[in-house]
């Protein structure tokens, strides 16, 4: 048995619904379970957590059997080293934020320490919320606390069930960078359920596409995207969101420079003072790629990047390219012909020309 794998073979029968899954996904990075509502992604996540007592089959996390019907083994949820983030934050309302965080920590035994809790509190930026009660938090803050609470037990596997679905548009973009930060800092593998394509594009290392209780496609992000009948549809609004701060202002030209992890972008000066935190949205259609440093161009923002992944877009003429600029990711929507002419592939060094940057919030 490959130890670095999460093996899931589950069969669950419900009235008018049947889940029948047999997959093995890498026990590292973010694996996104993707599909329309009602396809069984949440049920599958619940099966892995041991919350569906009717499910038959096997769940084996990196060699450790959590369920193995053949061996009459079924670990109850509380005995599985996992964290679970529910769609609604589900914080304990009779406890404050600290009480919520410590609930799992105290029960997890040696693995989790107060030190690691401090790291998690920093990682998710909830240090100032510790004495608040659940009903005094915004939707985004609740979800961050719920994620921190799940991580506090130092689980071997983190399960997230559409953690952004209950949030409005701007709140979603508030949480996303935290999730990216988790992916980049933590070694904890994550199973992430969503039906939103932008979350897949921004977070996934590995994708499992579900349809009507069955696996329709599974594999590394790029492979699944590149499949001829790629079930992933990208809208016009596909793009990346960067978080950073205002680094300087150019008052003569009414511009300001926003620095983010890995680079910086010039944008219209809206009067924010240097040091202000900002979130920037860069749409894929506003990013073009060149293989040499552009000169004599009207475009002010040119970032050195490395191609991270290439995926087919909805129209056969289009491609979506994910490029890494330092620790940040951008998406570029370009033609397939451009991909071929420039010889782009994962690892290529490119310059991303950013035509327009929007400041969100």
């Amino acid at each position, binding site marked *: 048995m490959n130890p670095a794998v999460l093996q899931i073979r589950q069969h669950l029968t419900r009235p008018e619904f049947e889940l029948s899954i047999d997959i093995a996904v890498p026990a590292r990075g973010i694996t996104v379970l993707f599909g329309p509502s009602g396809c069984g992604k949440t049920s599958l996540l619940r099966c892995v*957590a041991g*919350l569906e007592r009717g499910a038959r089959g096997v769940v084996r996390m990196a060699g450790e059997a959590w369920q193995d019907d053949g061996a009459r083994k079924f670990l*109850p*949820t*509380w*005995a599985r080293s*996992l*964290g*679970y983030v*529910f769609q609604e934050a*589900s914080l*304990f*309302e*009779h406890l404050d934020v600290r009480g919520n965080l410590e*609930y*799992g920590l105290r*029960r*997890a*035994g040696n693995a989790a320490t107060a030190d690691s809790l401090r790291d998690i509190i920093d990682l998710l930026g909830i240090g100032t919320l510790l004495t608040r009660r659940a009903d005094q938090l915004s939707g985004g803050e609740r979800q961050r606390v719920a994620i921190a*609470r*799940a991580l506090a*037990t130092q689980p071997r596997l983190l399960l997230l069930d559409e953690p952004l679905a209950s949030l409005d548009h701007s709140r979603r973009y508030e949480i996303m960078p935290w999730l990216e930060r988790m992916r980049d800092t933590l070694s904890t593998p994550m199973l992430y359920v969503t039906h939103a394509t932008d979350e897949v594009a921004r977070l996934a290392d590995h994708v499992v596409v579900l349809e009507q209780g069955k696996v329709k496609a599974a594999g590394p992000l790029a492979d699944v995207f590149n499949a001829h009948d790629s079930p992933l549809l990208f809208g016009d609004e596909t793009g990346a969101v960067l978080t950073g701060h205002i680094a300087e202002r150019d008052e003569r030209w009414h511009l300001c420079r926003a620095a983010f992890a890995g680079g910086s972008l010039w944008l219209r000066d809206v009067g924010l003072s240097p040091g202000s935190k900002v979130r920037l949205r860069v749409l894929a259609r506003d990013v073009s790629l060149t293989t040499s440093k552009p000169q004599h161009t009207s475009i002010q923002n040119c970032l050195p990047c490395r191609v991270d992944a290439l995926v087919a877009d909805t129209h056969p003429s289009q491609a979506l390219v994910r490029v890494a600029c330092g620790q940040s990711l951008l998406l570029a929507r370009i033609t397939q012909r451009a991909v071929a002419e420039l010889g782009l592939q994962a690892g290529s060094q490119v310059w991303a020309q950013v035509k327009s940057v929007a400041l969100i919030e």
Partner: protein
Amino acid sequence: MTIDSPALQAILLTIELAGLTTVLLLILATPLAWWLAHTESRWRTVLGAVVALPLVLPPTVLGFYLLVALGPHGPLGQLTQAMGLGLLTFTFSGLLLGSLIYSLPFAVQPLQHAFEAIGTRPMEVAATLRARPLNAFLTVALPMARPGFITAAILTFAHTVGEFGVVLMIGGNIPGKTRVISTQIYGHVEAMEYAQAHWLAGGMVVFSFVVLTGLGLLNRRHRRVLM
């Protein structure tokens, strides 16, 4: 007119009976209410109806069957005799047993509603945070159901204080042993002592009014888990 000693005796006995009934019923009703709130068993409806029976039965019916069951030829009576406890009819213990049954729905139903309002999600969350079921129940379900417990306690206590039919049937009216406020009032009226009856009856009116007002205030604060 001051409260004379038989009246005081009756008041103290009533408080003792209602207090003991409340404590015991909360302990007994908690698992029952939890089961009723979460089971998918087809016995749920049947058991729910049994629990609710004291709400609709005349107390004298309840008292009559308890009297028969606890009597020397009844199954419970033979059991208590075999255990060396003697007969419970016309004793405080018999009265307590009657009260437990009579007030059962007033403890079970608020708790059941509270547990239903909480749902299964918090218990699932607790399980994913390594809490064993009993521990999750004690640290999550119980604190979250607190308003339900307060309601159950107040209703049970108040309802037991107001009990008359069952007391008269199985407890008789023995001063210091089974004579509670309601039977004391009855005794005063029988003896044409209207002044004394007024004191106790008026007290009961005030007590009930205070309890219901308090519950109403509580209800406004915790609407979702109360009856």
